[in-house]
């Protein structure tokens, strides 16, 4: 593995600087809550965070924390510790990082960022919407800490959920509410939940508008910066924080777009990034910018986080939101349709697919997507092989060679 990284220096958007403060405040709040004896749930991505907030339970996210560890170059020792405990190297590196953390034995444990995940968790909540790994992973955590676990089951959709699927998940939600009542020994406060859903919908709507604003030519903000802005959407949906943050971000973007201020001086190529970014090397996303290329759209940022809720029928609306518009929960056909639509909509010149060793659910079908792009739109694409958090198998020079060659290819197409 080659050594990487200059850290990100100047942001295109002033508001982006606030993301770091939000992150710090979240971590300090969650640790004080733990100290005060408030319940903490370890939650997987795409769980009903809004419900947790409605019950005054604070969620901590081992996946997101895995990304944080990776960005601080801690993934390798943690993954290695997990493997030494018998976990397979083929397991998702988010899980490996978490296992390395919670099963660490002996000296040499790295200093965990933000004081570590608040342990032990009081509750576990997960779903199989993104993948089955999460269920098995959470079962291991349950064994480790012997705490209650709630699973929200949801089927894979064909892009949009059917009436029966929505009914099923709405029913699941009601069961989760019953379990949360049992856990907290308190009555469900529906008004509070509906308020949380409204806030979540507002933040989700704002996020979609932000994605669309980035579709402007020139693009006002690149991918790397936006990856740092996604946290409130991951962890704080249902609270006021993401609503305020994204509204401010949107306003700043609107000003940039109106003034036609691009993130890079001359925008020659507009790129799309597919899959989870390389958290240990986000620099790769801005690397292309020195060559006049910019990532303006990411399947990960648009189709994993956020989303609208039909508030006229909140339970079913929420059930639908949880399942739909989630890349990981889309069939291949739906992914192809979505990709082609977005490449057109955001005026994309080329797509970079990250074939992610950890996340098979995200990576499967990328060769078909590549082919469809070429056949239907004549748009070239590139597949790079890496992992979202484990830098063990990643080679910087080989990846950059591919990216350089891809940019040359785009340049040559433009010239002739």
């Amino acid at each position, binding site marked *: 593995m080659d050594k990487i990284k200059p850290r990100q220096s100047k942001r295109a958007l002033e508001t982006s600087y606030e993301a770091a403060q939000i992150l710090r405040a979240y971590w300090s709040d969650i640790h004080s809550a733990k100290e005060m004896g408030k319940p903490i749930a370890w939650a997987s991505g795409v769980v009903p965070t809004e419900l947790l907030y409605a019950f005054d339970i604070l969620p901590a996210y081992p996946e997101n924390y895995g990304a944080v560890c990776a960005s601080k170059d801690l993934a390798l020792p943690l993954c290695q510790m997990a493997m030494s405990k018998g976990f397979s190297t083929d397991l998702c590196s988010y899980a490996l990082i978490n296992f390395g953390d919670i099963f660490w034995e002996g000296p040499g444990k790295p200093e965990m960022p933000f004081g570590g995940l608040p342990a032990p968790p009081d509750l576990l909540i997960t779903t199989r919407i993104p993948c089955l790994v999460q269920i098995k992973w959470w079962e291991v955590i349950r064994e480790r800490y012997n705490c209650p676990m709630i699973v929200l089951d949801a089927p894979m959709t064909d892009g949009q959920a059917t009436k029966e699927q929505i009914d099923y998940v709405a029913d699941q939600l009601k069961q989760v509410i019953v379990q949360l009542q049992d856990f907290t020994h308190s009555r469900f406060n529906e008004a509070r939940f509906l308020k949380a859903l409204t806030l979540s919908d507002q933040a989700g709507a704002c996020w979609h508008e932000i994605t669309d604003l980035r579709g402007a030519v020139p693009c006002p903000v690149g991918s790397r910066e936006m990856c740092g802005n996604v946290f409130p959407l991951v962890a704080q949906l249902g609270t006021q924080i993401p609503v305020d943050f994204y509204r401010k971000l949107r306003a700043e973007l609107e000003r940039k777009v109106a003034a036609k201020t691009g993130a890079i001086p001359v925008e020659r190529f507009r790129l799309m990034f597919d899959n989870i970014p390389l958290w240990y090397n986000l620099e790769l996303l801005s690397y292309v910018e020195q060559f006049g290329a910019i990532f303006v759209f990411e399947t990960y940022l648009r189709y994993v986080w956020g989303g609208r809720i039909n508030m006229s029928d909140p339970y079913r609306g929420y059930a639908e939101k949880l399942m739909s518009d989630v890349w990981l929960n889309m069939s291949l056909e739906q992914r192809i349709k979505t990709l082609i639509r977005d490449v057109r909509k955001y005026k994309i010149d080329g797509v970079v697919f990250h074939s992610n060793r950890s996340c098979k659910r995200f990576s499967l079908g990328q060769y078909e997507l590549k082919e469809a792009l070429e056949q239907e739109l004549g748009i*070239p694409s590139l597949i790079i092989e890496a992992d979202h958090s484990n830098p063990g*198998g990643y080679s910087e020079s080989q990846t950059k*060679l591919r990216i*350089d*060659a891809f940019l*040359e*290819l785009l340049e*040559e*197409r433009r010239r*002739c």
Partner: protein
Amino acid sequence: MLVAGVDAGSNTVKIVLIEGGSILANWISKTGPNSMKAVEKGLETILSEHGRALHDVHSIVATGYGRNYIPFATYQATEILCQAKAIRKLIPEAKTIIDIGGQDSKVIYADQNGRVVEFAMNDKCAAGTGRFIETLANALHTPLEDMGALSLKAEGEVQVSSTCTVFAESEVISYIAQGLPKPDIISGVHHAIASRVSAMARRREICKDVCLTGGVAKNVGVVWWMEKELGLSLRVPKEPQITAAIGAALIGLEKASPGSHDVPFADARAPEITSFARGREKPKG
């Protein structure tokens, strides 16, 4: 105008000087631990041999894995683009280029105009690269340069089935222990690399004229098996190891005359290695 193309590869450094639209000189040497030093030394040598100095060179274009570590290079370009540029001139009909180097192998697919439309690379492991042959040549106590000719003497076929170079090495050692003839084993080694690279090439439609470049293209045994695997006759440039450096120099010429994608290059139809020279008439297996 004198331009230099420098291919700072992982194993060898290749330098090509182009002047007046044809190759003035070329130079190949081991990269060693410091590619920048190797290039510096190579450039000095080749220039002084021709009575020139660095300041006579209009531009130096660097390619290869070390392309970003040559501080005196005027431009950088990837081997993929450079190969395409060179082959467009050397063998214009060839729209598929297979390059087998010391550390990786690549397949480059070009369109009618010779522009790269797609590429595939094997760089995750040594199988399918020159390193594979090098390791097994060591195991066989055979000089690398003799491997090709020796394999043509094969009477039978030995299968080297391990994809992993380390396992393939123990497989080969066990064949030696069994007393199997060396040429048969070497032929098996070549077959193994050829089938891996061909499989990568066939992921996409390949054209009728396929060009093979890179140091491994000098190995007639690999060429023979590649042809058999792909079911066609390969086009191998006269000096297949320097094509990326030629392409790099051609990019230097293009940059010197903006707007021109068709710089004059007189060596364009330099003779290729013929089937006869490759010993293709000798059936094996």
